[in-house]
């Protein structure tokens, strides 16, 4: 192969790489809860609030409601997903230094969601999203849309609309 051939081949490979980069991507907000990793679509997470933002306890609310916070004069709820995701609390979530509050908003609902650690906000090729396996635990099936591997970590992609809906269902059952 001549040097010109090699050059042209290399250019073709580079072009192929560029095409690969243009592969459809989706923005994900990846976070940790307990020792597991989850993600929401970036489109439904409007803001990340520092975890040490004061959250005011509101009496007579379900245990999964941490309280409300003041966001530039507006009131926003802060909830925990531990119960919904059947996670065991291993630390004081409200005071964990790495914690954050994701402001989630869908057409039907909005709330702050306490997470133990925000890992990253990244664009991920849609080809990396794998459908959930049939063996996925039944309680997760209503709101898990995909699985992916991020930096070697298994991440479960959640549908925020379904999360809100099932969180509310869970509170109704608890009454």
């Amino acid at each position, binding site marked *: 192969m001549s040097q010109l051939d090699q050059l042209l081949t290399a250019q073709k490979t580079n072009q192929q790489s560029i095409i690969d980069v243009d592969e459809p991507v989706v923005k994900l907000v990846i976070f940790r809860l307990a020792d597991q990793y989850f993600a929401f679509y970036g489109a439904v997470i409007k803001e990340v609030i520092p975890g040490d933002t004061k959250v*005011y*306890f*509101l*009496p*007579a*609310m*379900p245990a999964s*409601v941490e309280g*409300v916070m*003041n966001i530039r*004069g*507006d*009131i*926003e*709820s802060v*909830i925990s997903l531990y119960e919904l995701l059947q996670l065991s609390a291993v630390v004081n979530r409200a005071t964990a230094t790495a914690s954050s509050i994701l402001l989630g908003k869908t057409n*039907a*609902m*909005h*709330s702050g969601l306490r997470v133990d650690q925000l890992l990253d906000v990244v664009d991920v090729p849609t080809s990396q999203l794998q459908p959930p396996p049939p063996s996925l635990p039944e309680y997760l099936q209503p709101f898990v849309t995909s699985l992916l591997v991020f930096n070697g970590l298994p991440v479960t992609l959640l549908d925020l609309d379904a999360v*809100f809906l099932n*969180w*509310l269902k869970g*509170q*109704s059952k608890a*009454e």
Partner: protein
Amino acid sequence: MIKQLPLVMFHQDKHWFALEAAYVVGQGKAGLLDAETRVLDFSQLLNLAAQASLSSLSHHWLRLAGSQGRWLLGISAAAELIEMPVEQIHALPPLLQASREFKALQAVAWYQQQLVSLLDARVLLNLASPLLTLVAPDANQVESLPSPAN
């Protein structure tokens, strides 16, 4: 245009609560009651102190419009009348509106950097009805007829 809302605010179990002043027709001390008047402790309604004695927690009371003198809302300390700027009053976030366990909770407000839970007195009246059959007048509290403040 309403700029301020008169509220009767009280402190109970480490939290601030308030009722629209239009629905509160009097307040007084729990020791000054006639034998027929029943005091329903607010904590009982809130279900924060279900195991506590109903009357022992109530040092003061509020008389709500619509209670027809049948009962008083027992609270732990004297209430105060405030004027709440309307811009400090917020509807409950939708998730809390849908999941609240205390249906009288109607809104929240910021007052002197404290969170205040705003209650619907009409719902309180409804919540009280089934509990009133369980609350007998407390003979230890009977002294004389109340003289509503304000």
